[in-house]
């Protein structure tokens, strides 16, 4: 093979690989495009029933209820809009999960609009706020994070 041809083929292969990676990234990204739902989003975006998503908001005070099995809890997540999501979670809640504080839950919606969480990502120290919940938890800027 002539040097020029080899360079050309190499460049074509490289472009092909990059294109493949970009397509892969885009298809994976599209599945994630609306990965995060705030309670108000459900009305506008519709219920995503086909995939696992994250929801986030504040745990409504007084909404936490424990089941008899000792490991399942129900609670309601709300945000500034009046919309709420009922969440059921089976598992150990993070150390700082409590009523009135922020929470991110990963899991699936059910057709009735309630949410079954497979994982709860609450803040994992006093200052940590899940990124999706914005900066309201970050006023203590000079503390260790």
């Amino acid at each position, binding site marked *: 093979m002539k040097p020029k041809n080899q360079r050309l083929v190499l460049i074509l292969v490289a472009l092909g690989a990059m294109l493949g990676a970009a397509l*892969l990234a885009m298809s994976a*990204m599209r599945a994630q495009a609306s*990965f995060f739902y705030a309670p108000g989003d459900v009305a506008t975006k519709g219920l995503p029933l086909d995939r696992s998503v994250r929801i986030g908001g504040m745990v409504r005070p007084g909404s936490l209820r424990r089941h008899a099995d000792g490991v399942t809890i129900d609670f309601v997540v709300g945000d500034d809009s009046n919309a709420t999501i009922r969440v059921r979670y089976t598992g*150990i809640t993070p150390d700082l999960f409590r009523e009135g504080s922020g929470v991110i839950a990963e899991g699936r919606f059910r057709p009735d609009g309630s949410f079954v969480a497979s994982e709860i990502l609450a803040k994992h120290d006093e200052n940590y706020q899940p*990124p999706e919940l914005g900066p309201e938890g*970050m006023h203590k800027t000079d503390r260790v994070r």
Partner: protein
Amino acid sequence: MIAEAGLGALWLAAALSLLQLVLGAAGARAGGEALRPLVRPIAIAQGLLAGLAFLFLIWLFLRTDLSVELVARNSHSMKPWLYKFAGAWGNHEGSMLLWVTVLAVAGGAVALFERRLPSATLTATLAAQALIGLGFYAFLLFASNPFNRLSPVPPEGNGLNPLLQDPGLAFHPPTLYFGYVGISIAFSFAVGALVTRDVGPAFARAMRPWVLGAWIFLTLGITAGSYWAYYELGWGGWWFWDPVENASLMPWLAATALLHSVTVLATRDGLRAWTVMLAVVAFSMSMIGTFLVRSGILTSVHAFAVDPRRGAFILVLLLLYIGGALALYALRVGTVKEGSRFDFVSREGALVANNLLLSAALGVVFVGTIYPLAVEAATGEKLSVGPPYFNSAVGPIALLLVVIMAAGPLLRWRRDAARALVGRIALPVLISAAAALAVVLLAPGTRILPFLGLVLALGVAAASVAPLWKRNLRRTPLFTYGMVVAHLGIAVALAGMACESAFTTETLVAASPGQIVSAGPFAVRFEGVEPVAGPNWTAVEARLHATRGGSSYEMRPQARMFSAPPTPTSEAAIETVIDGQLYVALGEADQQGRWQLRLWWKPMVTLIWLGGAMIALGGFLSLLGRLLRERRGAVREALA
């Protein structure tokens, strides 16, 4: 006085780096030969001074000198000494000082040990290293001074984030930084060689040990970080695709690609322009990672302070350095002569494929990490890109990469016959096929990625040792063993990941004292809880008695409450057995006196980190082999 001495050392180091830059830039030109001998000692002195400043900071932390703002904000007199020591870098300013120290020490080490580079290129390299250093010294001195005094002196410090109060803090950040920042050497080498138009096999041979050294530390740092997150967070996961994890993975991917392309350049004089590009990209990824972690745009246990000025400062530095290097590259790449050619079916061909796939993986991780941040910055819309994206986008690339890795070392340099490869790789393929059959029969319903991972891991493990087949093992060079061990490490880690993902069993209960719970092959009896206390925490500790067959294990997971700052954490109990780990986390109690327990049986999970350690060990053997061969060559020359 210690703080002032530290600050003085830092200022002096900064001044020396300016001198190093000026003398280096002038000395690298034709006609500047007289200046060149000055640059080496300056670089060494600068490294020593930065190291000294860092030692002074550690000293302040060990003494808990609360008149220093950083100590008061981040330490506490009651903290165990190990966390006073390691706490020196468990905060923004301290970790940036560590960053700069590693940068300066790496530059000093090049000045001290590098003997192969022509003096002009070495001088230009040291000037480039000084230029990077200068920016970050400015960042420390003007925006993140670790030695600020505080008045009035507070009676007690704020304490250290309890999540960081773990022996991991003593090991993970320094190793990671030695890798992360050590890769700056490759960047400076590339800039130096572009300036003096000296890109070639000799340049590659000189650069290789430095890249290898940084890469070993980076591998160890990532492995240690993964294990730390695994046992400390109590979620049982070992990789979360968190942006801060990606920030360390991206330089690793680039450095791994560089490690392989530099071999092509050193051995076969191919991939010249590409290798230089990768060296620039690798350290650019480190700087982007630093920006992500230290600017405060991410909230995580790694991002200590949120101060927009600091983020802007790092961003400007980043743009200047990366932009400058790319501009130099664009100007000079035309003068880099084309390297020698090769067939596609050849060792070089496989290494090119390796590089393309690693770059593709890097691109995918980069997009997934940066895109949500960019969208948020531009539109304010919050986007969350999580594990589903990374697993489905990186997984296939990684598996393809592993296939190439199996075949590559079995190919000859320059040209080979595809048919010959078939014979050499037949046995590994057979092993993979047998593994596939076994998994289908024994564990039907295994998901596709873990299935492929497991099958490929076994075949790749066989292919990794194949280069040693029928060779005289005593005469095989050490760096060949290095490659074999590192590639085997990839197979081992892959097997661990696949097993963890496919066969983990999880049990979740609210247990009353005396209750027996089963977790995988274990029967675990919950004995009860009792209060315990440590130096700066109190805890509820559960007593568990796990049995399997004839062996029994005592496990003690805790729910801790730290006193300063007051923070609850959970300390998982982990029992490592030959074929995996039993992992127990303690939750909270309910009114009936039952305690939540979450138990995981994770078969073969330890292979993940064992593999990581093997990869680093392979790098170390390879480095040792290269250095020994060089030493021998030098002795032979001296005798001749």
